[in-house]
């Protein structure tokens, strides 16, 4: 090459070969068409899909977040309701318990009163029965006393008095509680 230095001095690198202009432009245009048809749409599709996926992901996340928020609010409301309900039930139970205790106390009181009354009535009845039976016996005793007195010698007034005293003593021992 360097031997052809004479030719080189005639060469002007600014003057192109027309064939090279045409070839360069043609090859470039063919490449442009190929890339435009087969390469660019693929890249653009990937970009578009990625954008869509990211946007879709964001909106899905937003929906989920909103759902979760709503659910949380609902649960908190339910929890509040439940607390309220529990407090109400507790209050009611306390009231009911107090009422039951009062009722029971009243009942017990009434029962006690009833038992005491019953006891008193029974005692009264027994006393009445005793008095009645005593009354009935008093006659018999009086008769028997009279018989005895009549049967005894009446010469001794002192003795008579003793008999009566003894009788009365017996009587007192036999029929106590007479007020």
């Amino acid at each position, binding site marked *: *090459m*360097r031997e*052809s*230095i004479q*030719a*080189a*001095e005639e*060469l*002007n*690198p*600014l*003057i*192109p*070969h*027309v*064939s*090279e*202009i*045409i*070839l*360069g*432009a043609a*090859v*470039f*245009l*063919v*490449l*442009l068409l*190929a*890339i*435009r048809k*087969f*390469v*660019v749409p*693929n*890249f653009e*599709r*990937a*970009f578009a*899909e*990625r954008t869509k*996926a990211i946007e879709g992901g964001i909106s899905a996340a937003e929906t989920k977040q909103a759902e979760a928020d709503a659910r949380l609010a609902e649960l908190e409301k339910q929890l509040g309701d439940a607390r309220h309900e529990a407090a109400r039930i507790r209050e009611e139970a306390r009231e009911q318990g107090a009422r039951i205790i009062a009722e029971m106390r009243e009942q017990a009181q009434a029962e006690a009163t009833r038992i005491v009354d019953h006891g008193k009535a029974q005692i009264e009845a027994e006393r009445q029965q005793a008095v009645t039976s005593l009354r009935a016996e008093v006659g018999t005793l009086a008769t028997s006393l009279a018989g005895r007195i009549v049967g005894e010698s009446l010469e001794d007034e002192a003795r008579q008095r003793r008999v009566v005293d003894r009788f009365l003593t017996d009587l007192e021992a036999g029929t106590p509680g007479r007020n």
Partner: protein
Amino acid sequence: MIAGNLAAALVPMASSGGGFTPPGPADFDLPPIVGGITKPMVMIVLSAVLIFAVTYAMSRKAELVPGRLQYAGEWAYGGVRNGIAREIIGTEHYLRFVPYLFTLFAFVLVNNYFGLIPLIQFPTFSHSGYAYGLAALSWLLYNGVGIGKHGFLGYLKHTCVPAGVHGPVLLLIAPLEFLSNILVRPVTLALRLFANMFAGHLLLILFALGGEYLLLEAFSPINAVGGVLAWVMFFGVSLLELLVMFLQAYVFTLLTAMYVSGAVADEH
């Protein structure tokens, strides 16, 4: 010849040989491989095949959660799409220009990096024809878009008459605007890319061949130091080229986007 003699004079200790012949435009005039087919021709077709195969493999699955390959593709595609097209053209119109801008960026980038890939080691756009072709396409694109939007005369007015300028000063401004927006833009677009690639590759050849000459053909202790330095420079310039090659692809794409943006804009 003069330059060759000059180089030989700068290396006085050259013991033998015809002296050092510095690289020149002739080094870019590669002989045809077969028939009329040259290396850059093969490379430009190879670049298109490579770009399509790789980007297609990257985008084919288009999964929601990308794999490594798809992630890399989306990073590059998204960079051009969002970083250049959307930033400059605006969200309203940018999407229909994304295929063009993405292809342009990949095409220029791969062809530039061919200049550093071992065994290929030739930037396609150091042949000016390829740069002219791409610039012509960008020119057609932004003017076509402008005419499609504003009509032919409307577009001429849109391009040549800056907003808020009235009266006789237009006689001065309008031709200048026409010159700068319609005529100069494609030329600078092409020349910027071509000249960067050409000069970068020339520098690399110079340091590689110069180092080789000093070390192997004109060996002496001083020349050996110079040769090693030249090869160190070769390495440094290669790293610089790595950056320049990317920047040129980026700038070409960015400027095309700006021209399109100006053409579709409602007002200046």
